[in-house]
Structures are given as structure tokens and as C-alpha cells.
């Protein structure tokens, strides 16, 4: 049976060159970067080389890159670390409703710790309005965190405009750029952000390596205490092989980014265009300002989980909502925040393409998926409509 992996926002396979770069550090080069003898020095040199490559990908200084173990850790570190470092200046934080759980749950932690948090609403395409940001700022606001692009609906936020609003009031801005870094241009100077989270496995690097960009001069309270790794800001013996892999993946992503995006966009558009012709299937997110390989929909009258299972039986591996909410069988908070009804949000399906996908794969998906929808609707109790449940299709965007 065919196996078509269409869940690249969940994770990506390693590029062989990345694996090759990592291999020595999983075998003979096993040293601890803090050790002063040869093994340690080689490991130290390897992570500093990786730091330079990651800095090159986002146009920062190497010293502004702090390695972490995951994008979630980078997000926790940013939100909690900045809130604690600046709490004498104010105790109000803004986060958008498009955020990943690692931001939303960190924000909830801050609320329990005595901070006030405002959750910024979004429009039906998932955009945060910079004017809403402006109106939500108070004298107490110290930090704004807005995701660069949602992994659930692919919408790319107007970050530059949001940063402009924040800088009028001297407020620190963090962005979760896990879905974008390595996939579309991410330039910290151009965006103007103070902190930015990224993860290697989103651009064909390994899991277990990620980073937080912290603009030079920013104070941040550590999340993990211990030794002086990462200039005394993030303790714990470094995952040297994974960091080396992240460096290699960053180098390749920088060199190949344009080609990758140009390869993925037509494949994505083929799925989006094909699904526009299927009854009561709605594109979620914006048609243009979205991630190059991202096609997400809400399918009326059926559940995402059922689609995932039937698609998987045909060798198509995709997601419903976020990777986390796929498991939890829970309506995605991101979709709900976009005004999509909870009934319709249950029918979420997300196809995310990668460099291993071909035109044939996409043809197969656009042929098989409508049949899966038809079959599920035949057995759906809501096939004739939602009954007394709310209608949802008007809130999505594909049928304009």
C-alpha cells in the first residue's frame, strides 16, 4: 500500500546529510562540551558551529541563540522568563488566541502566579489585528507573544505591524516561529521581535534540538537551573548530536528555502483548489498568507478522527486540529477562536506537505479524500444537517 505522509507540521523526517553530520556525535565524539580536554573541546566547537548556522538562518548574532530541547521549552522559557524578569515594570501579558498550548498553558501559569493575561481575539481567518493589540495594551503590559504562523490553519500573522505597535510602548515581543523558521524567511531584524522560538524537526532536523532567540541585552530568568551551559541561561548537558543536526538542517534550509517553498506551493494549491469543489468543505485560514505546504479544512457533518482513520487505511497520514488535539478528541481552541462552531471544528483536517511528497501523492489524495467524505457522510447522523445544532460553514473562508 502507498504511504503518503502529510503531517509535516507534526514533524519531519531527517535529511540524510543531517543524519550524517550527527552520526560522529552519537559515536566517537561523545564528549561533554564543558570538559576542558580534547573530547570536550570538539563537542564545544561543534555546538558553537551549529549556533552560527542557526543564527545565519534567522539573521541574528550567534550569542543570541540559546539552545533548548524543544519548541515548547523555548516558548515556556520566553513567556515565563521575560514575565519574571520584567515583573517590576508591570504584570500584564498579551498572547493571541492562535497560540500553541506551550504558550497558552504558560500564560495560564502566569495568571496563577499573579500576572494578568489578555487573550487577543482573531478574525475568521485567524489574523490578529494590530489595532486590537494597541487597544489591549495597558500601563502594566510588559510582554506580547503572537505566533508567527499557526500550524493548525497556516495563517501567517502580521508580525511586523504588531511589533511596531508594541515598540511605541517599549513592550517586549516574542513570537513562536516553530512552524515558520526554516520554511519561510524568518529574519529577526526585519521582524523586529525580541525573542523567537524555533525547532529543528520542523525543518528536517532532529527532534530534541530547538532554540530561543533572545535579542542581545535582554534579561531573562532561566527556566532550568544548574550549570553554565548556554551562557548560564539554560542548564543541562547539551544534546550535542541533535544540536549539530539542527545546525546542519539550518544551513540546508537557508540554502534551499526558496526552492522548497516553490515546490510545495503548487502541491498545496492543488489540494486547496480540488477541495473547493467538494460540497460543504471549507478552507480554514487565509488563502494567500499561509504556510507554503499547508492545506487545512473543516468538513461539515463528520468528525476529524473518523477521516484520519479512513485516510490512514488508504495510506494517507494527516492530522485533525493540532497534533495534540488530534489525540485528545477535543475541538481545537484555535478553530473555536476563529469563530468556527464547535460542531464544524470537530470536522477539522490538516494536510501538511513536505519535500518527500510528489504530484502523484497529491493526485492520490484529492481522488481518495472526497470518497472518504462521502462514505462517512452516508453513516453520519448529521448527514441531513446539524438539526438543532448550529451551522458553521459561514465562518470558514474557502467558498468566497
Amino acid at each position: 500500500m502507498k504511504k503518503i505522509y502529510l503531517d509535516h507540521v507534526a514533524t519531519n523526517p531527517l535529511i540524510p546529510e543531517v543524519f550524517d553530520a550527527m552520526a560522529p556525535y552519537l559515536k566517537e565524539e561523545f564528549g561533554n562540551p564543558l570538559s576542558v580536554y580534547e573530547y570536550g573541546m570538539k563537542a564545544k566547537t561543534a555546538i558553537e558551529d551549529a549556533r552560527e548556522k542557526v543564527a545565519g538562518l534567522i539573521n541574528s548574532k550567534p550569542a543570541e541563540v540559546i539552545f533548548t530541547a524543544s519548541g515548547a521549552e523555548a516558548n515556556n522559557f520566553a513567556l515565563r522568563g521575560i514575565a519574571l524578569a520584567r515583573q517590576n515594570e508591570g504584570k500584564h501579558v498579551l498572547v493571541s488566541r492562535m497560540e500553541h498550548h506551550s504558550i497558552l498553558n504558560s500564560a495560564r501559569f502566569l495568571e496563577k502566579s499573579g500576572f494578568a493575561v489578555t487573550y487577543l481575539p482573531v478574525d475568521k481567518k485567524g489574523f490578529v489585528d494590530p489595532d486590537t493589540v494597541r487597544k489591549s495594551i495597558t500601563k502594566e503590559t510588559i510582554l506580547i507573544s503572537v505566533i508567527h504562523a499557526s500550524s493548525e490553519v497556516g495563517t501567517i500573522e502580521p508580525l511586523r505591524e504588531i511589533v511596531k505597535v508594541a515598540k511605541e510602548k517599549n513592550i517586549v515581543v516574542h513570537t513562536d516561529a516553530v512552524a515558520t523558521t526554516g520554511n519561510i524567511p524568518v529574519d529577526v531584524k526585519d521582524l523586529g521581535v525580541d525573542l523567537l522560538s524555533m525547532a529543528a524537526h520542523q525543518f528536517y532536523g532532529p527532534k530534541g534540538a530547538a532554540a530561543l532567540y533572545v535579542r542581545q541585552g535582554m534579561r531573562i530568568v532561566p527556566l532550568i537551573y544548574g550549570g553554565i551551559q548556554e551562557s548560564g541561561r539554560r542548564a543541562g548537558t547539551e544534546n550535542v548530536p541533535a544540536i549539530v543536526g539542527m545546525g546542519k538542517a539550518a544551513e540546508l534550509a537557508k540554502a534551499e528555502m526558496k526552492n522548497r517553498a516553490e515546490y510545495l506551493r503548487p502541491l498545496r494549491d492543488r489540494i486547496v483548489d480540488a477541495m473547493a469543489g467538494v460540497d460543504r468543505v471549507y478552507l480554514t485560514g487565509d488563502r494567500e498568507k499561509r504556510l507554503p505546504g499547508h492545506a487545512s479544512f473543516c468538513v461539515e457533518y463528520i468528525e476529524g478522527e473518523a477521516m484520519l482513520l479512513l485516510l490512514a487505511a488508504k495510506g494517507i497520514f494527516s492530522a485533525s486540529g493540532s497534533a495534540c488535539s488530534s489525540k485528545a478528541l477535543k475541538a481545537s481552541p484555535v478553530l473555536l477562536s476563529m469563530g468556527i462552531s464547535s460542531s464544524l471544528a470537530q470536522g477539522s483536517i490538516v494536510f501538511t506537505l513536505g519535500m518527500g511528497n510528489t504530484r502523484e501523492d497529491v493526485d492520490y489524495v484529492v481522488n481518495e479524500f472526497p470518497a472518504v467524505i462521502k462514505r462517512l457522510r452516508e453513516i453520519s447522523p448529521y448527514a441531513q444537517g446539524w438539526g438543532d445544532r448550529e451551522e458553521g460553514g459561514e465562518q470558514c473562508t474557502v467558498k468566497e
Partner: protein
Amino acid sequence: MKFIENVRPDVTTDIVYMMCPMHLLKLEEHMKELEPGQILEIMTDYDGALEDIPAWCEKTGNEFLGMEDSIDFYKFYIKKRAR
């Protein structure tokens, strides 16, 4: 402890919230770069620096000028010794 005010440092390093022993590593790193007679300012929130920095100066022959207590961190001033 020696307190001091209105010092004009030649170099400032902000290591507030960075873990111990970054205060000693940064101290050594910056002192190597300074010319004799120049003054380094270190900002840190680490309480152990209250003992460590004067002791380091004593050991290395550099002059510990004193410190200033800020709201949530300390400022230490060290003058590089003559050759």
C-alpha cells in the same frame, strides 16, 4: 562591604539572571580585554558575588572599588591593576 556611587565604568557587562559561576567567568573574560587602570562594571543578581568578586580581586591583585545596590541586582566595580 564597600559601597560606592557615581562610578563611570569603561566597560559594562549585564549578567543579571545568568547562573553561577558566570559572574567569575565574565569577570575574567572582560578583565583580559581591559587596559590597566580601566574600570569594569558587572551587574548581577547572584548573592554569592558579594563574596566572590572581592575575593577574586584580592587573589588577582585587581582593585575592588566597591558596589552599588540596585532594586533587584548588584553593580560591582573593579579597576584593572597596573602591569
